[in-house]
């Protein structure tokens, strides 16, 4: 064989071999039944899969036909080389690259939000319509269903209203990231719109000077740093964290559940009197021990969880006002269970809050300390597709009583109970379904009907101090951060200070986030 021809053959073999199996166009249609030829079976050949590793098949050569074929292939390869990039092509690519670099740098300088540290910005807005069974006039009655936050000074024959009760912007991130063990130092900062005359989250004043105007402003909600004292790099380890700053007090279920997860629009009745809807300033340790992670399902459970903290006790954005620190503690036990078990996510918890508050008269004259104690236990069972929660809270308050001329310390023993049952039609709460591969902005549509019983006794020493609200509702999850909520509230008032009435309201709310 001519030397030049042999060289061409060798070059062709070397160059074409990697393309040999991938150059064929795929068939668009599946084969018909029985199409595979059983004579092609590898059965019977004395070749083990292990022995085949690295095996190269060398094509037989030597015939004229093969020589012609190889020459043709070499010719085609030469044509490909002839089509290779010229100097002008390369200069063009360089120009494009320079243009891209310029545009990227300019966009980064002029159109990008920058931060010194890792930062996540999120937000949540609620837009609501409320229809009331009673006609609302000033002064706004406190004994009928009338869920509204931003009441103007004068109301006349109001039957319904549009409302924007909540708007929160949150920033979070890591101040120090521990790559080795993930003992990270993080931060949380959030602000919320707030009616001018009331703290965010508290029931807005409905009468007198406390009635809000439309000069809403931003209020700081969370402002804290969190240190993970134990490694968090693995899912199956225990956890211990310390949170310093302004934060929610870890009491019970209702007050600690974020808006994204709450099935019901309104908080339970006991939440406002406990003030656990407000942030507190202090230091809180939280731990999870006897933790298990079922890697077969990606399911984590901690048999024992606790929280222990010291707080100023007088709400957000304020320094302490007395010589005592309030103490909060919580313990929760989760029944150890496999993911498949019906006992999965069955938890009982207990919370204790002990504090003291200043008792002052109308002239801000200090009269003494008053007890501010809360005790509660809760039951949580969230077993997709249904869930049930129950919470019992006792409140012992010592506040100013009597008359302006003869003030006394009045002691109140208050009781709140709430139970919620919900059922989900859809996969919104399944992690696996939510994280599936998808091309578009698909999200599992989910319909979650629920019912809630909520009762509150303002003074257990009296027989007619009870308020009861029965709620039936539906949550519709239709996008990743958006849900529509419909709540029908039936309020039964049995309070000796106000007329005993039964009233209704319908709330329709769109809650969306980013």
């Amino acid at each position, binding site marked *: 064989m001519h030397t030049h021809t042999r060289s061409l053959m060798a070059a062709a073999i070397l160059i074409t071999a990697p393309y040999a199996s991938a150059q064929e*166009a795929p068939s668009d249609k599946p084969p018909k039944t029985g199409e595979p030829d059983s004579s*092609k079976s590898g059965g*019977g050949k004395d*070749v083990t899969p292990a022995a085949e590793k690295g095996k190269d098949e060398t094509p037989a050569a030597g015939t004229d036909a093969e020589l012609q074929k190889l020459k043709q292939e070499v010719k085609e390869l030469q044509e490909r080389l002839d089509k290779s990039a010229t100097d002008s092509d390369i200069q063009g690519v360089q120009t494009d690259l320079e243009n891209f670099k310029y545009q990227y740098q300019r966009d980064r300088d002029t159109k990008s939000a920058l931060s010194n540290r890792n930062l996540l910005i999120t937000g949540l807005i609620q837009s609501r319509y409320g229809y009331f069974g009673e006609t609302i006039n000033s002064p706004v009655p406190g004994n009928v269903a009338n869920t509204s936050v931003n009441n103007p000074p004068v109301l006349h024959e109001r039957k319904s209203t549009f409302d924007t009760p909540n708007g929160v912007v949150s920033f979070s991130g890591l101040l120090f990231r521990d790559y080795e063990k993930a003992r990270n130092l993080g931060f949380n900062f959030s602000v919320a719109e707030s009616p001018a005359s009331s703290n965010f989250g508290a029931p807005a004043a409905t009468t007198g000077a406390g009635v809000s105007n439309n000069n809403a402003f931003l209020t700081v909600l969370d402002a804290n740093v969190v240190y993970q004292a134990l490694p968090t790099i693995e*899912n199956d380890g225990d956890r211990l964290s310390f949170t310093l700053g302004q934060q929610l007090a870890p009491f019970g279920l209702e007050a600690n559940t974020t808006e994204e997860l709450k099935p019901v629009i309104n908080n339970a009745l006991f939440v406002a009197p406990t003030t656990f809807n407000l942030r507190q300033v202090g230091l809180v340790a939280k731990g999870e021990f006897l933790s298990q992670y079922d*890697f077969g399902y990606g399911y984590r459970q901690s048999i024992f969880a606790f929280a222990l903290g010291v707080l100023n006790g007088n709400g957000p954005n304020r320094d302490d006002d007395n010589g005592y620190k309030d103490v909060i503690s919580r313990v929760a036990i989760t029944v150890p269970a496999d993911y498949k078990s019906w006992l999965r996510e069955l938890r009982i918890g207990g919370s204790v809050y002990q504090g003291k508050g200043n008792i002052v008269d109308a002239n801000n004259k200090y009269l003494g300390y008053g007890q501010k104690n809360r005790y509660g236990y809760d039951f949580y069972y969230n077993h997709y597709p249904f869930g049930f929660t129950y919470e019992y809270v006792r409140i012992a308050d010592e506040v100013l009583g009597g008359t302006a001329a003869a003030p006394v310390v009045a002691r109140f023993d208050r009781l709140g109970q709430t139970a919620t049952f919900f059922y989900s039609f859809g996969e919104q709460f399944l992690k696996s379904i939510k*994280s*599936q*591969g998808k091309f578009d902005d698909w999200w599992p549509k989910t319909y979650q009907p629920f019912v809630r019983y909520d009762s509150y006794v303002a003074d257990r020493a009296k027989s007619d101090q009870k308020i009861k609200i029965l709620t039936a509702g539906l949550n519709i999850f239709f996008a990743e951060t958006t849900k529509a909520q419909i709540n029908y509230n039936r309020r039964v008032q049995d309070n000796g200070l106000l007329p005993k009435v039964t009233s209704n309201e319908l709330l329709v709310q769109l809650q969306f986030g980013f």
Partner: protein
Amino acid sequence: MKSRILAVVAALAVTSILGFADNPRIIRIGYAGVGSGNRPIGGGSYANIQADWAAIDNEFKADGIQVKHTYFSGAGPAVNEALANNQLDFAWQGDLPALVAKAGGLPTKLILANSRYDAIYVGVPTSSTAKSLEDLKGKRVAVFKGTNLQLAFYNLIAARGWKDTDFKIINMSTADGNAAILSGDIDAQVTGPDIFPLVDRGVARIISDTKGRPKESRLSHLLVVEGFAAKYPQIVQRVVNVSLKAAAWNSDENNRGKAYQIWTKSGFGLSAWKGDHDWIKLIYRESPLFDEFYRTQYKHLLKTAIDLKLVRRSFDVDAWLDDRYLNQGLKDLKLENYWPQQNAEGKPVR
């Protein structure tokens, strides 16, 4: 008139309660994995060939049965969660998560082998000085725990007499591990063929793999939920038959290049599939048979998983591998002798 209305209502109620319908309204199929960029397309086996052909969809189109395919970025554990919550009827899945779920009481049956000799790769950043597994002792090695990568890696190191505690094992999804190996947050990653794009880009290199070592490699399968199979055995048989056609096509060496091209739709390029498959005949790799090798290997994996406390209790593997549909399908399609039987060591016996 009133009695007739009552009779019609009663008949409808009884029909509804007894579930006289012959066919389901929908067939829900899960895949333990996603393509590059979280796209709902996979690659690497005949399961992805039949999905590309929409073979099962077409099979049931005339019956008006909808077929829903779901690809899980959470891989096998996510498939388990969906199965446990009655979201799937069939699933293409790997060995370890299926073992965990079955031992935990999930009522499933394996009805087809999907692939075998599925190699794992240990990749390191290009800048790493590590040249062998031994060099990684005490270093951070990312493994997607709960997937069959984990069990194969444990077998890989156990074969050398080492324990998982000799390494700093970090749980990371494949996508997270790919990113971490680029950023240098980990010293090594245990992966499937998705390591090859990183190698092509020059940012990672492979220091160990299990090619040619059947007992250190992975298995995968098609499973069905027992309740569905009991209610719709004829549907299960049709799904199996359609899948067997894809398996036969994918096992034909003449279709190797075409199969690679179909798999590249997953976003993982040709080099990934060539690197992962070129070393072995497809007739072995894509065999759907529950032969001696497959059964023995599954028993071996179960024992390993129990020893490692990944699985809490044992169960009867032979009873779990339900070959009735497979055997009927081979007979229907005249494929009884198409795939070679392999012995416990992974060698052909005919």
